[in-house]
């Protein structure tokens, strides 16, 4: 038992963090929020750093790594509120095609994914909207236990405005045609179930990062904002609120890392572990948004200040792929068996 990332893994993470700080600062997120611009520079650098292809087989130009390697980076993309489909494209698409046995399709798309030239939109059952469907190069859609692949032009997209302006949600309507079906049967069902776990866990990791960003902003603000002749961060009411948020995050984080391990190793309890990760991360991140906003006061309640960019993403992701109520109900069925 050694619950610690390797130095390589943390160096990889540090590099991603640094890159995101440079190419996905608040001004980039703001542009994505206000103009739907995404973060193309950061997206390109993700590929250059070898991240986009991390989960692709080496035979396809990928690194053949797992969620244990990617999870720290996903956390960073949350911290930066990266407005690009990194979960769908990097964490889900490759493994899904591979596990479906869609070798040809994988061979066709792997180079583009690894090279940062393709964005994937993901439509899983139970998720009403596909994020970034309009800018996707490939849509991977679940329907009746089958996996279908299509390009956005073959679908009717209806935009669904999100509270987070940088999230581009769409209802995707499409007709099965020859060539959309990628996989069916047992194998597809299993691969799609794992895809759902990957998407859920990736979202949980981003929530941890988003929560950390909200707390960080609040801590920095509380150090410099002065009222009653001292920084507001010297008041117990402010201190303790931020500590509770920080502590919730600290306790949720290992659950996210553990689920990554379980996914990679095909642990029989991986469902339970992913649900726990998402439930804890959703609640912790939501608490972070509440505490951070309250400690900011009115300034945090404006769109001129950066906090809202991270807070709104956290609100949205806390419910994407199941909110904490949903996942606790799943856990109940598994551990209480009723």
């Amino acid at each position, binding site marked *: 038992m050694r619950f610690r990332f390797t130095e390589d893994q943390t160096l990889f993470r540090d590099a991603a963090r640094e890159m995101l700080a440079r190419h996905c600062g608040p001004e980039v997120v703001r542009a994505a929020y206000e103009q739907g611009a995404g973060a193309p520079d950061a997206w390109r650098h993700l590929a250059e750093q070898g991240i986009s292809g991390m989960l692709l087989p080496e035979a396809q130009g990928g690194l053949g790594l797992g969620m244990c390697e990617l999870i720290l980076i996903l956390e960073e993309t949350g911290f930066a509120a990266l407005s690009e489909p990194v979960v769908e494209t990097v964490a889900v698409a490759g493994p899904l095609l591979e596990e479906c046995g869609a070798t040809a399709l994988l061979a066709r798309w792997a180079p583009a994914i690894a090279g940062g030239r393709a964005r994937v939109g993901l439509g899983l059952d139970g998720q009403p*909207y596909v994020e970034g469907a309009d800018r996707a190069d490939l849509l991977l859609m679940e329907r009746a236990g089958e996996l279908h692949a299509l390009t956005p032009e073959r679908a009717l997209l209806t935009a669904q405005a999100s*509270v987070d302006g940088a999230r581009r949600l769409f209802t995707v309507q499409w007709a099965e045609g020859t060539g959309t079906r990628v996989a069916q049967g047992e194998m597809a069902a299993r691969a799609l179930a794992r895809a759902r776990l990957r998407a859920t866990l990736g979202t949980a990791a981003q929530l941890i990062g988003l929560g950390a960003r909200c707390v960080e902003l609040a801590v920095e603000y509380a150090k410099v904002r002065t009222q009653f002749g001292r920084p507001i961060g010297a008041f117990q009411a402010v201190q303790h609120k931020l500590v509770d948020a920080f502590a919730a995050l600290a306790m949720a984080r290992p659950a996210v890392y553990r689920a990554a391990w379980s996914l990679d190793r095909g642990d029989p309890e991986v469902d339970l572990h992913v649900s726990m990760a998402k439930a804890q991360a959703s609640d912790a991140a939501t608490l972070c948004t509440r505490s951070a906003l309250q400690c900011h*006061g*009115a300034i945090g309640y404006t769109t001129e200040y950066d906090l809202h960019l991270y807070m709104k993403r956290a*609100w949205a992701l806390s419910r994407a792929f199941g909110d904490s*109520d949903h996942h606790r109900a799943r856990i109940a069925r598994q551990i209480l068996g009723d």
Partner: protein
Amino acid sequence: MDLHFTAAEQAFRAEARAWLEAHVPKEPLPSGDTREGFARVRAFERELFEGGWAVVSWPREYGGREASLVEWLIFEEEYYRAGAPPRVSQNGIFLLAPTLFEFGTDEQKARILRPMAAAEVMWAQAWSEPNAGSDLASLKSVAVRAEGGWKLTGQKTWCTRGAFCDWIYGLFRTDPEARRHKGLTYFMIPLTAPGVTVRPVERLDGDEGFAEVFLEDVFVPDQDVLGEVNQGWSVAMATTSSERGLSLRSPGRFLATAERLIALWRERGDPTDQRLRDRVVRAWMDAEAYRLHTFQTVASLQAGRSIGPESSINKLFWSEMDVRTHETALSILGALAELDTGAPDAVDGGAWLRGYEFSLAGPIYAGTNEIQRSIVAQHVLGLPRDRG
């Protein structure tokens, strides 16, 4: 104790309900914190005034109908029950007016109150400054003596709907030697005065509901000073006490929200999910408890007690209840919770999301809940001053 409404109160309710049913727009108006919505709500408030319902508890000479406090609460219940929009005249009629009634000259009352009630002149508060939020007494804007009045210079911020209003009111330092709470004076300032610049600030929900107001040598005549010179702090505190007390958030608003939540639950809730069902019950109970508590407060006021620092308990309660109620609604909506106004799938046009965002401001505005807790601790429980 008599918890039945009197025949007169029931008649008042029936009359209010009939009028509101006939006049409240069937389609909800756009948010009063947008320019368009502000204009439309203002137009509705003019109708309200014509109908005699704008300021029910005021004297008749200013457009009221001298209703009792109980009747005012009844009116509020009916107002929100009818789906009428939050008042854009709020910061005039509920915040400035009580101060005017208490401290205003006859000339000021005669000049200001009726146009305020009629939504002809719209008022914004200008309490905060960039470096004076919770610590209001640290404000820095100044007023210096001039012929027949004062010259005002400084910056005010978080002026609710300031970009759409006509006048603001706030405190300025008139005695530079005096410290903190002393040497402040309460001014009323037309935003059209030379030297005033108004910059709208966008709120969390994207509405331009805030403004920053910059003042540079703005001349304000003596007649627009409210109360005594250098006594602004005590004059203003009367206002913030009514702000925190009854008038800012009457129970009617939350009762209506709780009813909407129950309707949402019936329409979209998973009837087998007892956890969420329990949260719906809690939300309903909270609104009901706040209503009962308010009727009790009103009875106590009628018996001659003043509202005092206990009003901070109201603020704590309604602001946190409002967040919980909206959180519950968003949980019912699940994956649809994040949909904003304009999304085809948005339930009720995204009203619950918008309501959630607005609810998050509740623990912040009108004195943060941290400040309120310290007020209750020190002035109700009698604990020692903290170092705040």
